[in-house]
């Protein structure tokens, strides 16, 4: 699609959408939203970019390979935090008992492991959405995801 208005506007919107996505992800433990919502918003910005320009422009920013690696990475952060709690001597996904600093409730850096986990979920969801989009668009070749 060669529409100057769409391209121009999406070029303006995309950074703000991404910023908003990051905000929702990082404030997952303080406000409604979190990994899934934020990740979906972030992914929407990439999908918008790829739609309004074209697929190759989109994959130049974030390639299919990178997004599928991130997909595994996000999930591994989640499981890794859980296992870290086990290593630190509490139950799986333990938080305060494992000794993660809780901080002051209401501050950005609080909630111990939850923030890291939300971030992992955010990465996972965003990259999954993008990978799904690429896979459905590309069809053949990368159709195994």
């Amino acid at each position, binding site marked *: 699609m060669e529409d100057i208005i769409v391209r121009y506007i999406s070029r303006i919107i995309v950074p703000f959408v991404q910023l908003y996505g990051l905000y929702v992800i990082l404030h997952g433990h303080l406000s409604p939203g979190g990994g899934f919502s934020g990740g979906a918003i972030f992914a929407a910005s990439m999908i918008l970019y790829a739609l309004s320009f074209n697929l190759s422009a989109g994959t130049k920013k974030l390639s299919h390979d990178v997004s599928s690696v991130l997909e595994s990475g996000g999930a591994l952060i989640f499981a890794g935090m859980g296992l870290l709690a086990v290593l630190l001597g509490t139950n799986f996904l333990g938080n305060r008992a494992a000794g993660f600093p809780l901080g002051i409730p209401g501050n950005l850096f609080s909630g111990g492991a939850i923030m890291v986990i939300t971030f992992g979920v955010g990465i996972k969801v965003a990259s999954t959405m993008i990978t799904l989009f690429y896979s*459905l668009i590309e069809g053949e070749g990368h*159709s195994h995801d």
Partner: protein
Amino acid sequence: MTDTLLRLHQNSYYFFSIVLFIIGFHTMLTHNNLIKKIIGMNIMDTSIFLFFVAIGYVRGGRAPILEPGAGHAYINPLPSALILTGIVVAVSVTAYALSLVVKLYRHYGTIDAEEIMRLRGGETL
């Protein structure tokens, strides 16, 4: 009569979620187009989400963010949290189903269930 209507009004979330469920299920059963079947599946899922979230609603309640000193009622956050999981699942099922439809289209050149059935020679899909 008015009593029934009043109760229906008070429980309108449940009523409309059931209506949506029936619409979705009907779409899924009666349409041959595979994409429409998936849309029906999604409408059905959405109706269940609506039902589940409505359970947690407290009249006059706010989003459950704890603020010091505020004494108002909060809605029950658990159903919302559970439904977020449900939505994630629905998204992945939908994406997977769509990718299967892409594959089916590549194999048969159509996304009509009856047409596929005919091409296969009688067996039902």
